[in-house]
């Protein structure tokens, strides 16, 4: 491997932290809900429950995506582009010599990095990079493809 770049989310909340946070939220909501139920206003409870379900789902969703990433690897003869989005993993290999890197305008005036050869093409850097970083990465990739041998 000559060169590899990986873009992935930072996940500043650990799974353990997520559980603690969820427990704190549940504690707040349930104490309030129970208190009012005791005072006769039991209809607070269903809403408290719905709210906690929504939170639970949100944390679960985030958890499922913790190991998402996108990567480009430049090897001796190939360029390998991988990405993972929840369960969908993709991997595409190009012949290094023929690989072209292009920065093109896409819908909405943004740029996208396109990697391709032989009529196959793939977009990179949509999820974790912005325009500026994409521009930088494009020139870097072009450079690397040419120079490292």
């Amino acid at each position, binding site marked *: 491997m000559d060169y590899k*770049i990986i873009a992935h989310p930072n996940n500043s909340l650990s799974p353990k932290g997520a559980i603690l946070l969820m427990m704190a939220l549940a504690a707040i*909501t349930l104490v309030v809900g129970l208190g009012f139920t005791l005072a006769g206003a039991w209809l607070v409870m269903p809403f408290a429950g719905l709210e906690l379900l929504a939170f639970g789902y949100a944390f679960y969703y985030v958890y499922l995506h913790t190991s998402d990433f996108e990567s480009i690897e430049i090897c001796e003869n190939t360029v390998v582009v991988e990405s993972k989005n929840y369960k969908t993993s993709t991997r595409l290999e190009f012949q290094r010599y023929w690989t072209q890197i292009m920065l093109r305008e896409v*819908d909405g005036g943004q740029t996208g990095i396109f990697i391709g050869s032989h009529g196959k093409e793939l977009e990179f850097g949509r*999820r*974790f990079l912005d325009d500026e970083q994409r521009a930088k990465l494009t020139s870097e990739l072009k450079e690397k493809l040419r120079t490292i041998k």
Partner: protein
Amino acid sequence: MSTTTVAHHDDHHDHHPTGLMRWLTTTNHKDIGTMYLTFSLIMFLVGGAMILGIRAELFKPGLQLMKPELFNQLIGVHALIMIFAALMPAATGFANWMIPLQIGAPDMALPRLNNWGFWLLPPAAILLTLPFTLALFGIGDGALATGWTFYPPLSIQGGIGVDFAIFSVHILGISSILGSINIIVTIFNMRAPGMTMMKLPLFAWGWLITAFLLVATIPVLAGAVTMLLTDRHFGTHFFDAAGGGDPILFQHLFWFFGHPEVYILLLPVWGFIPQILQTFARKPVYGYKAQVYSFWAVGALSVVVWAHHFFTAGMPVPALLYFMYSTMAISLPLAVMFFCWIKTMWKGSMSFETPMLFTVGWIILFGIGGLTGLVLADVAADAQYHNSYFVVAHFHYTLFAGGIMGMMAGVYYWLPKMTGHMYNEKLGKLHFWLTAISFNLTFIPQFFVGLAGMPRRIPDYALQFAEFNMISSTGAFILGLSQLLFVYNIISCIKGGEKATDKVWEGAQGLEWTLPSPPPYHSFTEQPVVK
């Protein structure tokens, strides 16, 4: 060479439609922030127009313009719109724009949910105001006429306006919860490496506490209005004394939500005010930790003081004392914050661009709001002031000065960042002075008529209050018209104007000022890690 086909993952960034579809489907935090802020501005004008109708009616004693029923409806809908459709969305709009930028995240954690959170708002606003239109066609008797507080038995006897308002509140509640989920998850999970909790910008901290308060209180509000609904239509008697229920229970439920709500609206403002102060005093924020702890203290206290809103409803004396002292205790963390704001300016090299003018004006006027709150917190005094115009003046110093004028400071502060252009500074300053002066002209007289015994929510009043009401109405019209300057300044700033630099303000600090103005469509995405 082996290949697999690239499944086009269902991802929110895949294509970028233009025109109306872009706004309907967008999951970009800045687009959504912009929609929240735009919606907020529009509803601010709608709610303002309603209350000018009220002030026109109150210009002179006697009934001139409208029937008392319509008067009551306009007052209640004005308040609900200002709280839920103007202030709340302004805070959420800034959160969407700035929190990802400030904590170094590529976007909000749950972009699609974010889109839903916004698009629930317009239907809710329509539901709330539709009964006015329906009444014109002879359907129903107009919007809810109970004031924004929905007290039974009036709300149980009221017409379809109450039902519409109940559904509207449900939808608004869902929207708020979706927003809170997103903000909590974003702040906890999407921070850039090195951005620890105790390095979070105060705005993010303020919003985090706001989100926790929403989580604690929205289910109570939703439950309370649902119980109203079942009392109205399904034969329950939660709040009906004749059926063994208790109307005061509703007041407990409502204010358990309603009191924290006022801090829900203000915590985000308390978050960005120090950032503005530090920018224009060219000194770092004084007492960052003290302010974070004060946020926590206010947040915690705010859920245990609710009954100060109905001291006069009848409570055991120990309860009265408890709610009096706990309410007064809120002024302690507030005093800490005031101290920190002043100390941040102390001996700074200050300049008074529009955001700073609004901020300094904000500190003074919000201070008056807090102090008059203390007056009301006194159980003995409140027996006199409750339900009088004094209360109205108090909460406008906190919510118009403390809330809306704070948001205006934020708008002027961040607008150049968001649009890439400078606003018109002269117009901005003119807007500030007109707003500050006419605001006081409107509300100082209300303290006086309140002390003299003029009750709130009445379309007619005794002759002795005539002069002060005339002054107040005059102030209100100047205040309302001045806001057109604000709208004009914003629109021309979006359309063009002098280019803003990335940093915009000489003394600006924080991650959001390191991005180009306006920031790229996706900001601060994860820095590629090069191995």
